[in-house]
């Protein structure tokens, strides 16, 4: 579905190669987690994927078509981006916010139709947040707003969903809500999901494969092969244990950080 080949990136006025020869792919119905220490270039990478930053060389392909050749409108019909939830200048209502997701299908100088608003309401309902439809986004909790942003991304039926740390800054319950939604979406088999996260154990929960970014290089593989004590030591600088817990025929893994690793 989405394939990245030999991607290189560095900031225009800097020598530091943020990433070098990066290659991976995400199939339809799969989730990829991007992990890495703070400042390693996770956000930069996501911005490259979204075309906000230009990469130096390499290629990004969607359905074997290079995004460089793709028109913006085609690209944004395929790809949806869920930003981190934060306060906005104007407090739109949940419904108004959600219907904005249909923008690629609304012609310039036209308004969304009544069906579009109905569709937006349905989308909120699907996520179980229809009660937010008339609520001011700036008066919602972080979790609620994140849900609305997800609804806004899903409403246009994208093929690829790119999420930038959707669960950070949320409390445990809201984190779980978001993770459940991602799991559900993944289960539908319709989307390729790329999620940028701070938490390695979230990768366990939701991602089939993981991209671990580091200073010297990267690892891309199945999640269980990437998130292990060795990599956590090499890439995050911590000594840890991975604990597993079986519950109702499902296995849950958690990372128990023990202490800082001395190199």
């Amino acid at each position: 579905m989405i394939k990245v080949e030999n991607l290189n990136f560095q900031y225009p006025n800097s020598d530091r190669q943020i990433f070098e020869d990066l290659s991976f792919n995400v199939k339809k119905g799969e989730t990829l987690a991007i992990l890495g220490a703070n400042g390693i270039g996770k956000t930069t990478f996501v911005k490259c994927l979204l075309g906000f930053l230009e990469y130096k060389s390499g290629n990004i392909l969607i359905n074997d078509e290079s995004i460089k050749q793709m028109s913006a409108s085609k690209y944004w019909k395929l790809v949806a981006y869920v930003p981190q939830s934060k306060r906005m200048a104007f407090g739109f209502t949940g419904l108004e916010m959600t219907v904005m997701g249909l923008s690629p299908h609304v012609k310039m100088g036209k308004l969304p139709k009544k069906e579009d608003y109905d569709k937006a309401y349905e989308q909120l309902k699907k996520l179980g947040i229809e009660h937010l439809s008339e609520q001011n986004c700036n008066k919602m909790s972080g979790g609620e707003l994140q849900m609305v942003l997800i609804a806004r991304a899903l409403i246009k039926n994208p093929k690829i969903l790119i999420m930038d740390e959707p669960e950070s800054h949320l409390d445990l319950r809201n984190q779980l809500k978001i993770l459940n939604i991602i799991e559900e979406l993944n289960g539908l088999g319709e989307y390729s999901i790329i999620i940028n996260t701070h938490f390695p154990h979230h990768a366990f929960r939701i991602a089939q494969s993981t991209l671990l970014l580091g200073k010297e290089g990267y690892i891309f593989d199945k999640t269980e092969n990437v998130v292990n004590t060795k990599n956590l030591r090499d890439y995050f600088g911590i000594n840890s244990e991975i604990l597993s817990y079986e519950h109702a025929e499902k296995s849950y893994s958690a990372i128990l950080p023990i202490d800082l690793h001395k190199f």
Partner: protein
Amino acid sequence: MVKDRRKIQKNFYILSSITLIVLMIAAICIGRYTISPLDVFYSLINPTSFSDATIPVVVQEVRIPRVLLAVVVGAGIAAAGAALQAIFGNPLVSEHILGVSSGASFGAALGILTIGTTFGIQTLAVLFGFLAMYLTYKIARRRGRITVLMLVLAGVITSSVFGSGVSLLKYFADARNELPAITFWLMGSLASPSKETIIRTMPSILISLIFLYKYRWQLNLLSLDEEEAISLGVNVKRMRIVIIFFTTVIVAAIVSIAGVISFVGLIIPHFTRMIVGTDNKHLLPASMIMGAIFMLITDTLARSLTGSEIPLSILSSLLGVPFFIYLLRRTGGIWDD
């Protein structure tokens, strides 16, 4: 809940439109030249029947054009304010704060001194309005981001640059003839444009208003973070230029015939937002109606309270400031409604 909002919006349109129409009719009947409402009516249907030929002339040549001008100017400035607030994602801006009015008035003053024709004055006003907007934008934008503080400061800088420009022009102007012309018009008044000038200026304002109106929903998207807006499939750069173009044309056209009218562009969208909400789908047309009502009331007071015209900028600030204070107090300076 959903129904409540819709109901408020629907009621708002009905009520405000009726108010506007009633006010327009009243405004046509009010003025320094005493004309009974009945005579106003007759001068519209049968202007030749009057023994005092002045009555139909006052109604047709002076009052009706001026009432229409007030309505269009009010709607235009309010729409421009709402649109600028959207594209800068910042409820604290207006054409005045961003320095567009300043730039346009410099252009218009230059036009008065050098060209003198309505078209020339307007063209220069538009050009310098753009230049001002560009300057403010360039100064405020750092590392691809525009903060509220930088934007307001950049606006202050731009305004003062063009403000000094106007002072400089005044210095070069002939003190007995050109200087009064410039000061005269800087004060802001709808008194001076004749029917012909109004007819000549209207098209550019109306066409721009139609475009802003058509693009009003896209304004919502532009008010989000730039990257967020792009991800929603908006060609942000192009849209911004388009919106800036039309708002500048509106502001410059108004400045070139009526001078700088402050406060309306800031206050009206705010006030309207409190009634109909943030969605520009409703906010823009509602602001236009509210702006028209506000300007109509202000201008009717300005021209009929005393024998000499009260400058509009004074009246609109006088009426606008209490509003502004009320809004500030109500929202505690956090503009989230």
